[in-house]
């Protein structure tokens, strides 16, 4: 109910602002909807959204897998941390644009370059989060696993992993929002399709309705994925915590 209200307020203020600003700068909601529907009918909207989503999924999975593994290693092994730390600081502070441009220069305007660039942008934050999580592992539970001679794979799955899951969830959360942002930049700069490409074209043609149609459908997709997939996942993870009354 509250959500519906806030959405209505958003639409209303958009409409009012559109009336003041004039349709070239800010078209009214129906005008944007019309463009979105036209794009949907031609199929272009779904193709572009699909392509962008595929890139997000690939880059996100790649970055999470590598990031969790590297972060765990750096948290557990001292020399790995020493070795990796300077690179981590470098990557953390490197602007996304630099990574994307360099990836396109070195690997060409290819799909691999785009996905790698997005993944590299997300990687360091995941590593840092997981390293923190690994350092916070409860040594007393490790000792318990050792005394009872729980096989390593078992111990990792039942003793270590549950302690890391909140950190993995946090890394997914912040990482996904980062990927949503960066994927569009990567597409704008070097891909012939996707939401980012369409927004780039719309920008060059000063086609504001089209720009908004793509931006908003994309935002809607993000919202749906966050609420239907990520949030239930987090709730399931913390099922064992005694709930506050």
């Amino acid at each position, binding site marked *: 109910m509250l959500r519906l209200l806030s959405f209505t307020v958003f639409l209303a203020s958009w409409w009012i602002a559109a009336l003041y600003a004039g349709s070239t700068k800010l078209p009214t909601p129906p005008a944007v909807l019309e463009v979105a529907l036209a794009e949907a009918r031609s199929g272009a909207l779904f193709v572009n959204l699909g392509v962008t989503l595929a890139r997000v999924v690939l880059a996100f999975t790649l970055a999470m897998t590598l990031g969790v593994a590297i972060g765990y290693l750096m948290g557990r092994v001292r020399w790995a941390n020493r070795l990796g730390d300077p690179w981590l600081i470098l990557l953390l502070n490197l602007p996304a644009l630099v990574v994307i441009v360099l990836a396109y220069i070195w690997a060409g305007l290819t799909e691999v370059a785009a996905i790698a660039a997005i993944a590299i942008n997300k990687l360091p934050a995941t590593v840092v989060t997981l390293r923190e999580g690994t350092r916070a592992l409860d040594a007393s*539970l490790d*000792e*318990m696993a050792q*005394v*009872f001679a729980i096989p390593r794979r078992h111990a990792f799955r039942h*003793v270590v992993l549950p302690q890391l899951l909140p950190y993995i969830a946090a890394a997914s959360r912040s990482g996904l929002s980062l990927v949503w942002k960066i994927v569009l930049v990567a597409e704008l700069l070097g891909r012939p399709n996707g939401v980012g490409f369409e927004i780039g074209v719309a920008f060059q043609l000063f086609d504001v309705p089209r720009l908004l149609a793509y931006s908003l459908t994309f935002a809607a997709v993000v919202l749906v994925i966050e609420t239907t997939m990520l949030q239930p996942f987090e709730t399931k993870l913390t099922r064992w915590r005694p709930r506050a009354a």
Partner: protein
Amino acid sequence: MRLDVDILGKAFEGASGKRHEVLSEMHFSLAAGEVAVLFGPSGCGKSTLLRIIAGLDPDFEGTVSRPADLRIGMVFQEPRLLPWRTVEDNVRLVTPPIDDTRLSALFAALDLSEHRHHFPGELSLGLARRVALARALAVEPDLLILDEPLASLDDALAGRMRDEIAGFAAQVSRITILVSHDLDDAVRLGDRLIFLSERPARILRVVPIATPREARSETEIARIKAEIARPINDWPQRA
């Protein structure tokens, strides 16, 4: 099955870089079927000794020799349960597949049946400690190590857990080591009481109790306690 403890010394390096001697020289051996009770002042290094025996702390001088494939069950001072697993899963995780009747019997004996599907966060400390004991017993260990298993439990409950431990220890081929602050528990459970000094801990004396555990009557227990208590008072005070 035999456990030989030959410790020459153990020291910690404190945060300030200062060395703290925790254990001094101590030697003892335990044979299968024996229950040893470590008895000593708080903070004297009993838990450190248990950790060394359990193989958790390789950083000491001396040797502890035990069979290579020894199965250990341990109750730590804190329960150390996995908060994200239910009581039952906590027990099952550490054991090779355990059949349901045996597990149910164990839970029933420790009055845990109704808590099987609870998470540790929903249990009181006393309950959690019982789960920890159930876990240690469920693995049918060759060596059972208990760090103050009966502390902070009411008398009736402590009695029941004591019976459970005694029942376990009665089976030959097992060695039980437990730390206790309570002379009564020690005399009721132990075959051998090992008295430790203050830090750095050394063995002050070893009191074997010849009467088998199940044959110890209340008067017998009182007599042994009185006998032990007398020389304690006569020990020279540390200057």
